[in-house]
């Protein structure tokens, strides 16, 4: 799969997205400023940035959790502001601290997700996802009984179940054990291979480097860089053969933060 192939319809298109939190002082806090990006189907886009860079705000706005103040978001060709329901049918969101329903079992979470997205034959796929996440033995466990890692696995299973065109992951590997991390990575790759576009926000730079085809570096609400790691090296750390970590530090250092992609 080549996500950069021309004429491929975008899974996500963001244009000039800006967001200001009014409660942040006299003039508010600019959380996002003129953010624009395109994500192709099957592409994994890594979203990185220091604390307070606007990563979660960007993801939450794309997911329709926060209202769009300025700019436009289109998911699979559906304008999020005008056709919110159609746009949301194409996306799934996994937050950094998933909170399953205490009164539903693991299997019922999947049953609920299937009904929410209008899926009829969900059992086979649910079984497959549970097996892949090693949650089969927990089918009848209640949401409130799950450990942090299991909650995370369940949230990922629910996200993959309706085969959404776009999945937004905010720190998806928190709380997982090494085997869980490996399984989660494999499932992200497998879903992307099936054509799901993934935006992966994480502070684990090695993870982003390993999975993402392109990276978006945000700093103080602005896009500092958007492109492949190779392009980032050439542009932000010329001559270096370093990892994403080196590029990240170069991009988010005070003197580099003004650069725009």
């Amino acid at each position, binding site marked *: 799969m080549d996500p950069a192939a021309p004429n491929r319809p975008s899974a996500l298109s963001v244009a000039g997205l800006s967001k200001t*939190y009014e409660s942040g002082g006299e003039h508010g806090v600019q959380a996002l400023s003129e953010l624009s990006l395109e994500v192709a189907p099957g592409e994994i886009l890594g979203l990185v940035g220091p604390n307070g860079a606007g990563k979660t705000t960007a993801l*939450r706005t794309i*997911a*329709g*959790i*926060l*209202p769009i103040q300025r700019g436009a978001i289109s998911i699979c060709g559906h304008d999020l502001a005008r056709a*919110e*329901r*159609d746009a*949301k*049918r194409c*996306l*799934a*969101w996994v*937050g950094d601290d*998933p*909170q399953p*329903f*205490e*009164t*539903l*079992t693991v299997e*019922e979470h999947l049953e*609920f997700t299937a*009904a*929410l*997205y*209008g899926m009829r034959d969900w059992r086979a796929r649910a079984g497959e996802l549970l097996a892949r996440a090693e949650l089969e033995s927990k089918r*009848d*466990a*209640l949401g*409130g*009984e799950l450990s942090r890692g299991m909650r995370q696995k369940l949230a990922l299973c629910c996200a993959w179940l309706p085969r959404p065109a776009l999945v937004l992951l905010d720190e998806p590997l928190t709380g997982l054990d090494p085997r869980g991390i490996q399984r989660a990575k494999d499932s992200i790759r497998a879903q992307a291979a099936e054509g799901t576009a993934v935006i992966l926000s994480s502070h684990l730079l090695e993870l982003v480097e390993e999975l993402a085809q392109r990276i978006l570096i945000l700093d103080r609400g602005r896009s500092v860089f958007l492109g492949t790691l190779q392009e980032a090296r050439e542009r932000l750390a010329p001559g270096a053969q370093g990892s994403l970590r080196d590029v990240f530090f170069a991009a988010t250092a005070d003197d580099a933060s003004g650069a725009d992609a």
Partner: protein
Amino acid sequence: MIVPPAPLRLLARRKFQGWWRKQLRRARTPGGAILALIGLTVIGGWFAWMIFSVVLARGIGAGSADVANAARGVGLFAALFTTLNALSMRGLYIPREEIELLFAAPLARADLVRHRLWVAGLRSMFGGLFMGLFIALEAPVRAYGVIAAVLGLWTLAAWSQAVAIVAGALERRVLDRLTKATRWLAIGLFALLVLGFLAWSTSGEHAWVSGLRERMLQGLPGGRLSGLLSVEPLRTLALPIEPWARLAAAPSALAGLPWLALCVLLWACGIELAARLPIDFRELSLETSSNIAERIRRVRRSGGAVSSSKVRALNSLRRVPWCFGRSPLGAIAWRKTAGVVRRARGTLFMSLLVIALLSLLVRSFGGEGASAALLRSGMFALFGTFYLCNGLRFDFREDLGRLAVMKTWPVGAWTLFCATLLPQWSLVTLLLCGALCVLNLVDGGLSLELAPVLFAVPLLVAYWIAIDNIVFLLAPFRTTPGQDGMLQNAGRAMLMGLVRMVVYGLFAGTIGLAFAGTWRLLPLAGVSERSALALGTLAGLGVGCVGAAALTWVGGRALARFDVAREGA
């Protein structure tokens, strides 16, 4: 000896200072200051009224015997309640954020118990003063009434702490080692013993049983427990409470001094007894601390009532019916229905309790004829709506931490609003309509006059749930145990309650007006009474449906503009 060491005293002092600083900081913003002022006025006014009543009651006081009996009754009830509570809270309770720090610190365990009891004592001052003022209303020496209550509460805290430690240790050493079969055998034997005692006591002509029955049937004169406490076995049971009862009933300051000394001594002994028990309570305390933290977390998450009760693993086997179809709306409603089904025990208990109490209440409104029956049914519907909707709460309060995820669901805001509240509305409506039919059947059969009330119930319930949730979504706030900002919370709860009542009154009043206007005015134009009643019901129903639709729309808007940054408010 009974005083905790300097580091723990310092900790208590600093925590109190921190609490005080927080209160002041909260009152710095205009909103916080206004809410604090309202809260202060409500709490202060209530307390002032109590003190004023005590002062005014001078001279009206009952006899010493009555005061002593009342104190015995209150004491017996408090002791019973505290002991039962202690059995479910084993070991020493220390908040989760402190327990590991304190257990790892170079402090004697006995000192931790002393510290805990002092802190608990200071925290119960407000409750003690409140209870004391009640007793002081009739105490010959007012101050002794208050002191007896405060000292009684402190001693009770020490007693319950000792019970919690001993019961926990016993459970570990005995109960945990029993097999499941032996445990059930022991429970069965105990149940047989209780049943046998009940059978024995009710079969023969035991003087005290008939006396107790008589007292119960007569009721408690003037709300006092003195009548009940004149029954011999209860009086024997209340013997340990005697020193505090005597102190409260002391006829003069001098006569009360020996009792005062004895009460202080008992309190000090209680603290030392609890502190010096040779039992290692650390594991139990960690368990208790974690259990209580979990309970508080559940209440914080769900906003209290039945929805905060724990869902046991066994209940997960109970299938949840898809009552509202398999559409996205049906799925969201199904998720909420799971809460009702999996907390069925709590739901059933709460429903029966409210319905039984309300039945007793409305029956006290006598009168014959259609109007009286309509009035009784109407009152049942109104109060039932209020109490059942608050008790059986399966609404947005328990989803406050999940609203971010819920907003990503592919449904419209008003669909989400309706679907989330549908199970609660259905449950309360069914319960109320069922109870109304049963009550009317018991009272002599169903009549046509019940029809308007049965039609009004779904609307009244819908109004209350919708308004309650709209106000919550616009100003999300849940009061939970141990939360900071007591004054602001009281003020905010008062304001929000007022807003809810006013809006509810306006909506419910409009239905009432449409119904009563049509019902009463049409007969003047020559329409028969029955037709007027039917047309009135239709008019009320029509107006009610318009109101419900408007509220649904407003609810959807409130949900759409809900700021998830307020999560956990």
